[in-house]
């Protein structure tokens, strides 16, 4: 009885400490956090496929909605990578980038890096030009930096990746 109570108390205490550290905003984030801790968190594969299809058709708002539905707790590195990529492609501009979208993309790719095993994420997808989370992060950061190279006329012919 005492041993079971002690174990239950320890688990409850650890869960409280985790919640204060992670600051979950929704019930889905709480349950997702706990299930991913014990390795049983699964994304909604159908919603993920829908999101990917929207992404490839450049329907970024729709893609984000579907990807957010696929990973409501924000615990899947690959889904967070694609969410970041939607922000990148939507915010990318030949003359200037949308800083607000790039900042959201940076937050999403940071989550992806944090969640990936050993913080390394490589995505084998022919439809995208950036295949690692580190490159995407650097690209987003470059987009948010304002310096003399912004006035380089060659920027107008750079490709969107």
């Amino acid at each position: 009885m005492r041993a079971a109570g002690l174990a239950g108390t320890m688990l409850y205490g650890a869960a409280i400490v985790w919640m204060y550290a992670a600051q979950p905003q929704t019930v889905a984030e709480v349950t997702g956090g706990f299930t991913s801790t014990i390795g049983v968190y699964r994304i909604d594969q159908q919603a993920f496929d829908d999101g990917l299809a929207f992404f490839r058709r450049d329907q970024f708002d729709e893609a984000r909605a579907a990807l957010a539905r696929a990973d409501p707790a924000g615990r899947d590195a690959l889904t967070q990578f694609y969410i970041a990529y939607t922000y990148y492609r939507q915010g990318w501009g030949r003359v200037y980038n949308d800083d607000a979208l790039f900042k959201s993309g940076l937050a999403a790719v940071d989550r992806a890096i944090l969640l990936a095993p050993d913080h390394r994420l490589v995505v084998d997808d022919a439809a995208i030009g950036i295949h690692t989370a580190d490159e995407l992060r650097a690209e987003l950061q470059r987009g948010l930096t304002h310096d003399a190279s912004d006035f380089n006329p060659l920027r107008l012919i750079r490709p969107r990746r």
Partner: protein
Amino acid sequence: MTPLREAFVLPCLFLTVALLGGLRLGADVRLVPPPLIALVLAALLLGSLVRSNVVAPVRLLSQQRSGLENTSGGVLLLAVLAASAQVFNLLTPDTGLLHLLVSVFFLVQLLTTLTAVRDRVSMLRSLAVLLGCAFVLRFIALESLYSPGRGVMKRVMTALMEGITLGALDYVPTGSTTGYVGFLCLSLYLVGLVLMPTMLTADRGGTLVSLGQPAQTDELYRHLPALRGE
């Protein structure tokens, strides 16, 4: 005290208080960890609770208990400390001059209690009044004064107060739902304290009775061998 109460009920109650005490349900959900002053106040409160026989550490940690029992008792004491810290975190405004004023008020009140209150029932009553008053001040008076849809008079009053204190008297309302959660949290905390094991001794007839005054603890130690069946 039954093992069920010591190992399940009380830790669960106090850990729930520790969880809910920092919960702020406003525009977004926040879990606010206790500031340092809340830990200091919690330590003082725990001292007062021990002194007034609301919490009896000897019933939770002693040589007569096994290692597992002592661990369980130690965890319960830690849970009481965490819950106490979160209760102060709940009742103290998060920032500004009001945070300082309420913290100092709690500190003085607890020091007074620590030196003056020796009786379990009086301590519980005193604590209920103290926490109840602080709850009314924060979640009824301040929330009403600083609520977003307040009237002209309230806006003038708060503007005057902020003007007099050169802007230091600032308060960010936490939303009415936080008040309900706070009420539940305080109720659980007080129920948990009432359920805590107290010092017991045997009267002349062999019946276990509660000792109200710490002066009688000597009598307990005289009766301990009898209680242990020696």
